[in-house]
């Protein structure tokens, strides 16, 4: 009898065990508790996976929308899969040609996915299903388009507005009046915003802020877009040219720099380090450390969740004098169908239903506005976001803007954030000590302003040149790149 080869035997047993135990749970697995109401039709349905990014009450909104769809028919069941870092995971899934049926992304992810052929163009499907492009607010539709084709449709959309703490305004009413400002309304221009902020500031005896009227760094998510509020732009929508260092943008970043100079970088650094996370009662605005802040349509919901008694108001974010408004940056989350979606037809059925009926459910529960020009009449009744009208008006404003898609969108955004950080932290008094020596009072301030402006110009020029070079390189290399067949 041959001796048993224990090494091989152990290996075979190990592989067999892994094979048996490592059974992948399937979407179709029936859960008698969760899926009780669908028990009769469960086996006959096509099961779709829908990867989305939200958590908390925003995820509840998405789940409610999926549930409504699943109840509305008996041929398809959409499984909402909460997916953090959905863009990265979806990218890997697309490379491995194993993507979900339906994919929720941010509009900033559109270009790499569309350009790489990982998501399907939807124009023909929209035409066949009666989804007219003109039902959408134009800017939102554009955010889902790349090179003339629609690759993604809106889910949750956003505009930005000025949130202001009415309690702070009331507490400083006399001072505001003394400064010639109205405590019963928010600022209407950037210049007015600065004056309001000046009055609302409160400092400890050592100069450390206790309350800041306004901080351009808070929340710090849209530092790339300040130029638009001064009449500037990052990309020329007609020519696609990169316009980082145009005068309006320089003016905008010089304005943000003035806050750092006036109140002291180190003191502000110290002050900001005490802010809690966004979704917490220690959020700088919610806690009352910052009186005015540019925030999105979701923010009133977060305020009411963490500090329901806070008296706050929402108004269009002011523009610089002479710049037409109201205006807001417009961005959105999108839904797309991967090219390798296992059930593209069914996926479109869901996306189509979502665009016609589901969005209203989603937006209602998430407390947001809708991407369409005419929301259903019931949409506003009992909407949880009491400030919704401001955000809706901003979405419809002809002056509101999007940052057009480019092949180097992510690099551009990151470069602008770094530029902002550099400008904010640039220590003029250290770097230019020799040039400021002997100067005092107004002359010194004027020289500081001039030097800061020079640095802003240099920084933005460097960004433009860098992004232009990267864009040129991408376009040149693109000529040799065969696109993936769709």
């Amino acid at each position, binding site marked *: 009898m041959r001796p048993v080869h224990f090494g091989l035997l152990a*290996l075979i047993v*190990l592989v067999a065990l892994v094979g048996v135990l490592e059974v992948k749970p399937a979407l179709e697995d029936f859960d008698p508790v969760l899926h009780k109401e669908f028990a009769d039709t469960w086996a006959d349905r096509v099961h779709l996976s829908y990867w989305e990014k939200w958590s908390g009450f925003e995820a509840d909104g998405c789940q409610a929308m999926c549930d409504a769809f699943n109840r509305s028919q008996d041929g398809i069941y959409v499984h909402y899969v909460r997916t953090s870092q959905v863009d990265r995971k979806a990218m890997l899934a697309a*490379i491995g040609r194993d993507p979900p049926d339906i994919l929720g992304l941010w509009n900033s992810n559109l270009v790499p996915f569309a350009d*790489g052929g*990982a998501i399907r163009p939807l124009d023909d499907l929209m035409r066949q299903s009666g989804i007219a492009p003109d039902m959408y607010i134009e800017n939102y539709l554009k955010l889902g388009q790349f090179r003339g084709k629609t690759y993604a449709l809106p889910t949750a959309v956003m505009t930005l507005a000025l949130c202001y703490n009415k309690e702070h305004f009331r507490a400083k009413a006399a001072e505001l009046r003394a400064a010639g400002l109205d405590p019963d309304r928010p600022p209407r221009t950037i210049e007015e915003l600065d004056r309001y902020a000046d009055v609302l500031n409160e400092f400890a005896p050592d100069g450390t802020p206790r309350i800041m009227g306004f901080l351009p760094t808070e929340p710090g998510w849209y530092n790339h877009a300040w130029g638009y509020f001064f009449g500037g732009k990052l990309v020329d929508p007609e020519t696609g040219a990169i316009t980082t260092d145009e005068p309006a943008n320089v003016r905008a970043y010089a304005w943000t720099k003035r806050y750092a100079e006036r109140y002291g970088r*180190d003191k502000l650094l110290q002050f900001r380090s005490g802010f809690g996370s966004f979704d917490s009662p220690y959020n700088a605005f919610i806690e009352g450390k910052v009186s005015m802040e540019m925030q999105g349509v979701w923010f009133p919901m977060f305020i009411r969740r963490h500090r329901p008694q806070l008296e706050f108001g929402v108004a269009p974010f002011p523009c610089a004098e002479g710049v037409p408004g109201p205006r807001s940056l417009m961005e959105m989350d999108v839904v797309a169908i991967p090219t390798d979606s296992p059930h593209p037809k069914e996926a479109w059925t869901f996306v189509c239903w979502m665009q016609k009926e589901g969005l209203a459910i989603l937006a209602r529960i998430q407390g947001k506005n809708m991407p369409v020009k005419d929301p259903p009449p019931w949409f506003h009744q009992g909407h949880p976001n009491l400030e919704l009208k401001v955000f809706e008006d901003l979405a419809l404003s002809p002056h509101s803007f999007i940052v057009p898609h480019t092949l180097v969108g992510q690099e551009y955004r990151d470069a602008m954030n770094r530029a902002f950080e550099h400008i904010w*932290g640039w*220590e003029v008094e250290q770097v230019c000590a020799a040039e400021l020596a002997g100067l005092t009072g107004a002359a010194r301030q004027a020289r500081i302003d001039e030097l800061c402006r020079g640095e802003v110009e240099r920084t933005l020029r460097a960004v433009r040149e860098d992004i232009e070079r990267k864009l040129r390189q991408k376009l040149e290399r693109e000529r*040799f*790149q065969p696109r993936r067949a769709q």
Partner: protein
Amino acid sequence: MRSALRGRLTSYAFISPWLIALCFFIGFPFLAGLYFSFCDFPPLKVPVFIGLENYAELLGDARFHMSLGVTMVFAAAGIPIGVLLAITLAMFLNARIRGQSFYRVIFYIPHLVPTVVVAILWLWIFNPEFGLLNIVLAQVMRVVDGWAGVFFDLEAASAGAWFVKREALILLAAPLTLALTVWPAVPKFLRPSARLRQFLMTCALVLLVLALVPLADAVLHRVAPRDMAKLHAPGWLTDKSPLPSDVPFAPSWALWALIVMGMWGVGQMAVIYLAKLQDVPVELYEAADIDGANWLQKAWQITVPMISPVILFNVVMAIIGTFQVFAEPYIMTGGGPEDRTYFVALFVYDQAFQYQRVGYGSAVAWALFIMIVVLTILAFRLSRRHVYYAGR
């Protein structure tokens, strides 16, 4: 013959899971990365061969240079401190004291904590407003400044003026006591008895510390007033300014924070040193005792040479580890402020996954691989004269 073959087959069968995984999950990506480094390769498209373009680009890429600089500075500042700390710790752990095993476990435990947890924990510790470190530092600096203020005018020191007060003369008591204790030329009638000498020695050392602390504080206020002002409440992870501020290529406060945090895991290195320390023959110390060598001489002439192969091993591993630092800056700073903690591993990640430039990211990774190999060879070459392999 057959049994030899069977034996070999059995060995391969046992290592085959590892071997297969190595080939597929390390070998293949390793070689594929080399090919991709010569390609333009957005991950959703087909890689297109572009020759040496990626390598040419990284030669002129200022951000890559910046990230490489950050990594190098981190290595230059962090590795020597880490090695020194680990050796010191190992020596303490090697001492015959009660609860030795307990201390060894305590110092090793931090190494077992997952990186993400450590990063989040240190985020709290480094918080400038309510972080533990700044709270302690503020109290310590208050006491130190208060004590130094008795002898020196710290405000004048910061302003660059004469800062020594008359009271500073008292501080001379420390060196005088020390001299009295140890200086052999002291006249016999002044020389204290052995017991008194021991007492005076202890007093002298205490006095010396009490004198050196305010002196160092005042001198630092004079030479680095800005840094000293910041030391009362540093911004740590949010501060991009260098420390010391006047030294070129000095690490930023943010990078210092990561260096300090890196010391958290020094216990693992210390355990390796400890194993080697216990391997040092006792006879060598006994011979040194007979020769009248003191503690420092024994450490320098016996301990360090005997553990030098392990020092080399740890240094090489630390150099490689530095090029792989990713999780801590990714979680704690995102590479900021202003790229001051933008390690080269973050750069590779951004290029490949954020900007979809897998080809360029691969080129950078390969350039790093070559750098690590060169640095390792260099470390081995330089160490030939200084590393002692007993019996070889």
